[in-house]
């Protein structure tokens, strides 16, 4: 049986999905900017409490994981399977590290009594409640995307090991890479909005 493979079609389909993701996060970014516009002082105060070194470190991790992802794809395209696998494992490891950091960051905040609907947070003014609501939902949704990305990349690793993805058929890995890079781009915007702009 001949299996029909449409390389360009696969990528266009992936891009359509990615664009719908951009609109999903775009809605949240609009919400953020409107609330920031309406509560500039509260957002300023709340943002100063976030741990900037933590956020910077996570940015470096995700940027590096994007590099290893891109290198993994180009290694596979060149037919270098072992180095492709090593770069893919590095990407998965960095993604995992990102989530571990995020976990400690969230736990730290929760120990300080700052989490959605917590008594300590509700005592503060409305703007700070909004800021932390957005912080948890936006970084949470992003974290969920990282988690999904880790599952996808692990599946790709298995497929490479089984030889189902190779030099002649690498579009699944390339599309997974596109997803991973999009998750990186979303973080590129989340990072300054929550950690840097005070």
């Amino acid at each position, binding site marked *: 049986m001949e299996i029909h493979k449409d*390389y360009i079609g696969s990528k*266009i389909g992936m891009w359509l999905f990615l664009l719908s993701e951009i609109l999903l996060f775009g809605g949240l970014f609009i919400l953020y900017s409107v609330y920031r*516009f309406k509560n500039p002082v509260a957002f300023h105060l709340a943002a100063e409490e976030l741990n900037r070194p933590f956020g910077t470190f996570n940015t470096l991790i995700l940027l590096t994981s994007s590099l290893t992802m891109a290198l993994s794809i*180009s290694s596979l395209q060149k037919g270098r399977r072992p180095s492709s696998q090593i770069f893919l494992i590095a990407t998965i490891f960095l993604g995992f590290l990102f989530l571990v950091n995020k976990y400690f960051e969230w736990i730290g905040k929760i120990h300080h009594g700052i989490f959605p609907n917590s008594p300590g947070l509700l005592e503060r003014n409305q703007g700070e409640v909004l800021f932390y609501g957005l912080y948890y939902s936006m970084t949470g949704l992003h974290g969920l995307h990282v988690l999904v990305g880790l599952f996808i990349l692990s599946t790709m690793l298995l497929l490479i090991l089984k030889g189902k993805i190779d030099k002649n058929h690498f579009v699944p890995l390339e599309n997974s*890479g596109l997803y991973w890079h999009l998750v990186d781009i979303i973080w590129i915007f989340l990072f300054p909005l929550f*950690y840097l*702009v*005070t």
Partner: protein
Amino acid sequence: MKTGEQNFHVVKNRTYVLVWVGLLILTGITVSVAGMNLGRLSISVALVIAALKSGLVLAYFMHLKYEKGLWLFKVMIPGILLLLILFIGLTFFDVAFR
């Protein structure tokens, strides 16, 4: 599409590493600018640098620079981004003049 036709571009590893270095430098700039307390300017500086960084990721890591001849990419992606900018613009028009 004919089978075996090379319709993809293998990017050099050197290019990827240079892009990564560029991304790290931009991150360094945006973090140090944030420490300067530029006030209202700080949000525009942060957003411009974020846009530059995502431009680098889109063009090189996501291969948009190399998707030549694919007019669909050139219409679809800027189209969606314009739609998003339009949404943001209309929302602010509404919020600011309410």
